[in-house]
C-alpha cells in the first residue's frame, strides 16, 4: 500500500511530459499527413500510376526493411520496460540492438535508393520520382535523428533510473512514431 501512495505524485509528473510528447508527435504526424495528401493529389490526378517509363520499384527489399524497423520498435520498447524495472544493463543491450537495427534500416534504404537510381529514377524525374524520394528521404532523416537520439541515450545511460527516465520514454515514443510513418510510406509507395 505504501508503495502505491508514493508512486502517485511521480505518476502525475510523468503524465505531463507524456502529454507534451504526444501533442508534439501529433503535430509531427499532421506534417507527414500533409506530405501524404500531396502524394494522393498527385497520384489521383495522373492519368496512369506509375507513369510510363519509370522503373518498377522493388518490393522484397523494402519488406525486409519494414521487418527490420518493426523489430527495432520491439527492441526499443524492451529497452523502456527494462529501465522501468530498474535493469539498466538490459536497457543498454536493447538500446544497442535498436541502434543496430536502425542503422541497418538506413543501410537497406541506401541500397534501395541506389538500385532505383540505377534504374533511372531521380528526384527530378517527374512527380513519381519527386514523391518517392521526398517521402523516403524525409523519413530517413527522421530515422537518422532517432538513431542519434538513441546513441545519446546509450552514452548517458547511467543517469536513468526507475524514477527518472523520461528521455528514454520520449525517444522510444519517437521511434515508434517513425516506425508508423514508415508503415504508411511502405504501404502507399511500395505496395499499392
Amino acid at each position, binding site marked *: 500500500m505504501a508503495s502505491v501512495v508514493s508512486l502517485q505524485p511521480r505518476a502525475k509528473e510523468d503524465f505531463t511530459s507524456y*502529454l507534451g510528447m504526444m501533442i508534439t508527435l501529433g503535430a509531427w504526424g499532421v506534417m507527414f499527413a500533409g506530405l501524404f495528401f500531396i502524394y494522393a493529389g498527385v497520384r489521383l490526378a495522373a492519368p496512369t500510376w506509375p507513369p510510363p517509363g519509370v522503373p518498377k520499384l522493388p518490393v522484397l527489399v523494402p519488406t525486409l526493411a519494414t521487418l527490420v524497423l518493426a523489430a527495432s520498435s520491439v527492441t526499443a520498447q524492451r529497452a523502456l520496460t527494462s529501465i522501468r524495472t530498474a535493469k539498466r544493463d538490459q536497457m543498454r543491450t536493447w538500446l544497442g540492438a535498436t541502434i543496430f537495427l536502425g542503422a541497418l534500416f538506413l543501410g537497406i534504404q541506401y541500397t534501395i535508393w541506389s538500385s532505383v537510381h540505377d534504374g533511372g529514377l531521380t528526384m527530378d524525374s517527374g512527380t513519381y520520382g519527386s514523391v518517392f524520394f521526398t517521402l523516403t528521404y524525409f523519413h530517413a532523416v527522421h530515422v537518422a535523428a532517432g538513431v542519434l537520439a538513441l546513441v545519446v541515450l546509450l552514452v548517458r545511460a547511467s543517469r536513468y533510473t526507475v524514477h527518472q527516465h523520461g528521455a528514454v520514454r520520449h525517444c522510444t515514443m519517437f521511434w515508434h512514431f517513425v516506425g508508423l510513418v514508415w508503415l504508411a510510406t511502405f504501404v502507399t509507395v511500395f505496395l499499392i
Partner: protein
Amino acid sequence: MSEQHIHPEPTSFWRKYVFSVDHKVIAQQFIWLGLSFLLIGGMMAMMIRWQLANPGQPFPVIGRFLLPATHGVVSPMMYTALFTNHGTIMIFFAVTPIMIGGFGNYCIPLGIGARDMVFPTLNMLSFWAMVVATVILVASFFVPMGGAAAGWTAYPTLSTQMGTPGGGQTLLVLSLFIAGSSSIMGAVNYITTVIRLRAPGMTYMKMPLTVWGLWLTAVLNALFVPVLASGLILLFFDRTFGTKFFITGAMIKGGGDPLLFQHLFWIFGHPEVYILIMPVWGVISDVLPFFARKPAYGYKVTVYALIAVCVLSAVVYGHHMYTTSMSPLLGESFMVLTMIISVPAMVLFLNWLRTIWRGSIRTTVPMLFALGVVFVFGLGGLTGLYLADIPQDLYLHDTYFVVGHFHLTMAAAVFLGSFCSIYFWFPKIWGRMFNERLGKLHFWCSIIPITLVFCGMLLIGYSGMQRRLYNLESYEYAKRLLPMNQFVSVMAFTLFLGQVFFVSNFVYSVFRGRKASENPWELGTLEWQISSPPPHHNFDVIPTVIHGPHEFNNPEVLKKLGKDWLGQAEVIPGAEAVHEPAEIAQAGE
C-alpha cells in the same frame, strides 16, 4: 497536480535577460520583437500606399537611401516584394510574436495560477527559433536577385524557380518553416500547461476567457501549422532539388499540379486567420466585463462558440479557392460551411454587446481599444459574408474588397486588440502606469484612420480595383479610383504617424512611469492579486480558486467588503464552505 517548486532566480546577465526560461521574460522578448517588426511591416505598407497614391514618385525623405537604384521610386519588382513581405512580416513576425508569443506566454501561467509553463526550456527555444527565422527573413532581402516576391500566399508557379528565381524566395520558405516550428513548440507548451497546471479549484469554466482564447489558439497552431510546414517543405524541394510537385504537367513531362499547393496552404491558411484573431477574442471577452463591471454575458456560450469556430475552421478553407473552377457541389459545400462559421462569431459579438449593455463603463484606455475591436471586427465580419457567397466572390475575389475585409477583421481588430492587451497588462508587466491622456490620443488617432483606410478599401474593391496592382494609371477602369486611393493613403499615413503617441508613451513609461500598485484596474483574476511586476516565482502560495474571473457587483461582497470585485481565490468573510472539498480536489485534476 504536480508540485511546483520555487526555483532560485538566475543571477548571470545571460540567464536573466537573454536565455531566460522565465515565461515573463520570454513574453517581453516576444513583445519587443513583434513591435519592431510591426514597425517594419508598417513602413512597407506606407511605401505601398505611397506608390498607389503617387505613381512613379520617389518615396519622400528616406526613399533615396532605401531604394538607391531607382532614386527612391518603388519599382514594379520592389512593389511586389513589398506587398509580399508586408503580409508575411505582419502575420508571422508581428502579430504572432506579440499576441501568441508575448501575451500567450505572459497570461497563461499567471491566469491559471501556475509558476511557469510546463516546459520552460522549450519556451526559450521557441523564442530563439523565432529570432533565427527573422534573421533568415532579413537575409532574404539582400541576396542577389532580391527577396521573396510571390505574395505572402507564395502560390506556385510564381513561387517556383521559374517564377521567382534566386535565393530570396527559398530563404523566405526556410524562414517560415522555422517560424512555424517556433509556433508549434509554443503550442505544445501552452496546451500542456493549461491541462496540467491549473491551480486547485480552477476548473476549465473558471478560467479567464483570455486563457481560453490563447489555449484554443495553441490547439489550432498544433493542428495546422504542420500542414504549412509540409507545403513549405515541398516548395523548398521544388526550388532546391528539382522535384515536380507544383510544376504543372502541361509544362514538363510528368509534372504535378500547382493547385495542390493552394490546398495545403489554405488548409493551414484559414485556421491561421482564426489563430491570429482568437487571442484578441479572448482578451476582449475579458476586458469588456472588466471595465463594464459586469460578468461576461454567456461565458459558457462564448467558450462553446470559440470551440465551434476552431472545429469549423478546418472545413471552410475552400472559400479562398472559389475561382479555381472546383466542382460546384464542393464550392457550395464550402459556401454553406463558411456561412455557418459566421454564426459562432456572431454569438461572440452579441455576447460582447450584451456584456457592456447597462454596465458601469470605465472608459480606460484598454476599454477604448476593446470597444474599437468590437467595432472594426463587426464591420469586417459582415463583409466576410459577401465573400462567403460564391456569386459575389467571383466578382470580388482578388479585389481590394478582400483586402479591406481581412484587414478589418485581422489587421485592424488584432492591431487594436494588441494595443488593448499592451495597455491592459502594462502595469503588471512593467510595474508602471502609462500616461492616460497619450493613450487616449493614441486610440483616437488609430481608430479613425484605420476605419477610414479599410472601409475605403472596401469601396475601392467593390468598384473593381484588383489587388496587387502597381500603377492604377495603367488601367482604364482603375484610373478613376486614383482620388479614392489617395484618400486611403493619406489616412494610412495618418495612422502610421499617430503611432508616435504610443511609442513615446510606451518607451517613456516603461522606464519612468509612475509605479503601479498590484491591482490598478481592481480585478479578480489571479495575476492582479500579486505584485506588479510579479516575483520570479509568480505566486508565493499557489492559490485555491473559488470564484470565476468576473465576480463583479456581487451584493454580498459589496456589503461585507465594500468593493465591487472579488478575487478568484478570495474567501468572503463569514461564508460557509460553499464548495465541497471533493469538488475542489476533482476540479484540480
